[in-house]
């Protein structure tokens, strides 16, 4: 059963309301790899720190804590201030290099609950509208960009939960075309964080927390280990070229994985997706690959950005709003009461076409039933052939465009 949008309250995520952030920060040394520091920092840092209490038992963390305690005991006030600034930079850098999928096993209780849930029906595809980053930032009295960054961290955690529960496909609404209406600085911040996150995927030296592997492992390897295929859906041509290239590289790098799928909707609205699908079909007609009568609901489905994914079983929107906000409007799951009627209409149209054909050839329209049947069959077979060749051409066009972007010099 699906649940209504906007019913779920939850912590902030990146998405329709949020996005990604960056802050000009001190680049720290590699000793700063874990995030939990329990000292008396001002409230804004504590807010962020609390979100990361999942990390336990890291030796690096205890080393960091010892270092901080030692420095705190130092008499000089200036040293204290310098350490505060340094540590805030360290922590923000840690937050920023967090991986796409947060490693770390669930606690015993969580594993128990997860196993019970897995005994029953589990959705195959969940869609998230991650809303409320800015409100979260306001509540914690941090900057908006920090709210977006925290939202991304929560996304990583959510992906981990989904993997653990056996939910193999997740779609997230990261950035809407409507979000371009925001202030230039906020949009730039969002796009900067996107650049950072997509670059992270490709970096060999990217460091991540991984309880299972004691040594730091590149994020790309972790994605390979989990078999995560990342797809980015949306009107990517609206984004800056360098970001498009990074996205293309990330998508190309993970396209062969098929254990689980993460669809990131970036520069996306559902209306643009539907319009683009119709435009592609019109392109097919222009190229002579399709007839106008071949256009159908099934064909439109196959021309959407999300044509490789099944329709989501559940749509979750955080922060309590009850709108769909132009997200996956076409991909609603509802019992199709009219499929039979549509087939009947199609058959009627085919009958008319066959009658016309026979009349044109000078034959009796209502003559040989066998002939009519053959012609009908031939008509639908030809249509099927046209549709398949059009879909192949479309797939090739999209793959070529991505490949071209992906191999462009960065």
């Amino acid at each position, binding site marked *: 059963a699906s649940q*209504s949008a906007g019913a779920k309250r939850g912590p902030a995520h990146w998405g329709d309301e949020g996005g990604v952030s960056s802050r000009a920060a001190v680049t720290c040394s590699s000793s700063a790899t874990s995030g939990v520091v329990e000292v008396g920092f001002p409230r804004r840092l504590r807010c962020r720190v609390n979100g990361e209490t999942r990390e336990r038992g890291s030796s690096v963390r205890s080393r960091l804590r010892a270092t901080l305690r030692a420095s705190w005991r130092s008499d000089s006030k200036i040293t204290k201030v310098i350490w505060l600034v340094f540590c805030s930079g360290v922590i923000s850098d840690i937050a920023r290099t967090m991986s796409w999928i947060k490693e770390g096993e669930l606690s015993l209780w969580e594993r128990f609950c997860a196993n019970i849930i897995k005994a029953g029906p589990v959705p195959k595809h969940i869609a998230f509208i991650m809303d409320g980053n800015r409100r979260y930032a306001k509540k914690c009295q941090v900057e908006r960009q920090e709210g977006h960054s925290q939202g991304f961290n929560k996304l990583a955690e959510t992906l981990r939960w989904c993997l653990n529960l056996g939910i193999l496909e997740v779609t997230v609404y990261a950035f809407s075309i409507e*979000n371009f209406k925001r202030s230039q600085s906020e949009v730039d911040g969002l796009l900067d964080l996107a650049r950072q996150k997509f670059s992270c995927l490709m970096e060999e030296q990217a460091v991540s927390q991984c309880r299972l592997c004691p040594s730091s492992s590149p994020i790309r390897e972790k994605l390979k280990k989990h078999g995560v295929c990342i797809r980015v859906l949306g009107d990517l041509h609206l984004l800056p070229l360098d970001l498009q290239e990074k996205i293309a590289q990330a998508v190309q790098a993970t396209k062969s994985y098929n254990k689980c799928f993460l669809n990131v909707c970036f520069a996306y609205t559902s*209306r*643009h997706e539907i319009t683009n699908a119709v435009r592609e079909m*019109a392109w097919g007609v222009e190229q002579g690959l399709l007839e106008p009568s071949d256009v159908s609901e099934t064909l439109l489905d196959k021309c959407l950005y999300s044509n490789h994914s099944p329709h989501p079983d559940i749509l979750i929107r955080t922060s309590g709003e009850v709108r769909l*906000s*132009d997200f996956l409007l076409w991909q*609603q799951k509802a*019992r199709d009461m009219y499929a039979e009627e549509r087939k009947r209409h199609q058959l009627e149209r085919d009958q008319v076409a066959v009658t016309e054909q026979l009349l044109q050839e000078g034959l009796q329209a209502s003559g040989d039933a066998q002939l009519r049947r053959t012609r009908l069959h031939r008509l639908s077979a030809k249509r099927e052939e046209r549709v398949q060749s059009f879909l192949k051409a479309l797939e090739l066009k999209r793959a070529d465009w991505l490949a071209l972007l992906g191999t462009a010099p960065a």
Partner: protein
Amino acid sequence: MAGLQALVQRVLRALVWRALHALLCPHRTLISAPRVHPGTWSWIWRLPKPLVNRGTSRSPSPHPHLHPHLHRLQHRDPALAATRPGLRWRADRQTLCKLPVHLTLLITELEPSFSDVASIVVWCVAAGISYISVYDHQGIFKRNNSRLMEEILKRRQELSGLDCSRYSAELEKSNVKDGLVLNCRSAVQVLSPVDGKADVVRAAQDFCQLVAQQQRRATDLNVDVFDGLLRSQGFPDPDLVLKFGSVDSTLGFLPWQIRLAEIISLPSHLNLSYEDFFSALCLYAASEPRLGK
């Protein structure tokens, strides 16, 4: 041995899951029963808050998805409530800072009630809502369109406190297909899934036909152009969708048009009280669409 252990664990987990399910099911049956036998189970609606609105009684503001009638669970006969409707509705209307221009009643229940839907439509007209749609995914209202329209007119005449004698009581089908213009200010239409995806496909076919005849190019198409190709009967996009029933889905309702609609869920349209309806309008008035900004 390890295999036996795994099997035992699996069986235990399945049993616990089923036990939880069994615990939840009677609760669900109790809540959903009014839909099936509205007469016998109507006393449910008078139950105190905690049973009907689990987990939401402490929230500072009423949750729009769950029962919006948190505070006033009074079972009242709509006719009784409407003895002096004109004054009451005028007063209520003034308390709302924002009204939807187009309101949709989305019935997900299997057996809709024409009289109850007609009452709600008349309340919408009284509240000053200009466009009202009624939708169900089985197409029941569409097939019995004239019956619904007669019920609406009958209801409007019953609740004559609306002072509707000024307006024509005839069925005007001139510019609204399968619809009705109740007065100079409000229009009602009935929708079904053929008006949703099927209309989008029809518009796509029309555009592709123009492209085949070389009257348009594929690159000419954008969101606004496509919006113009869809049939709207002069109705704007819905601002508010009141969804009745326990199915958490819009069931194929106008996918293109509901991109910004607020979707407020109510348990059932059967014997819906005016207060519950008004609470939903209040919830809508309190919403803030940010439109991406």
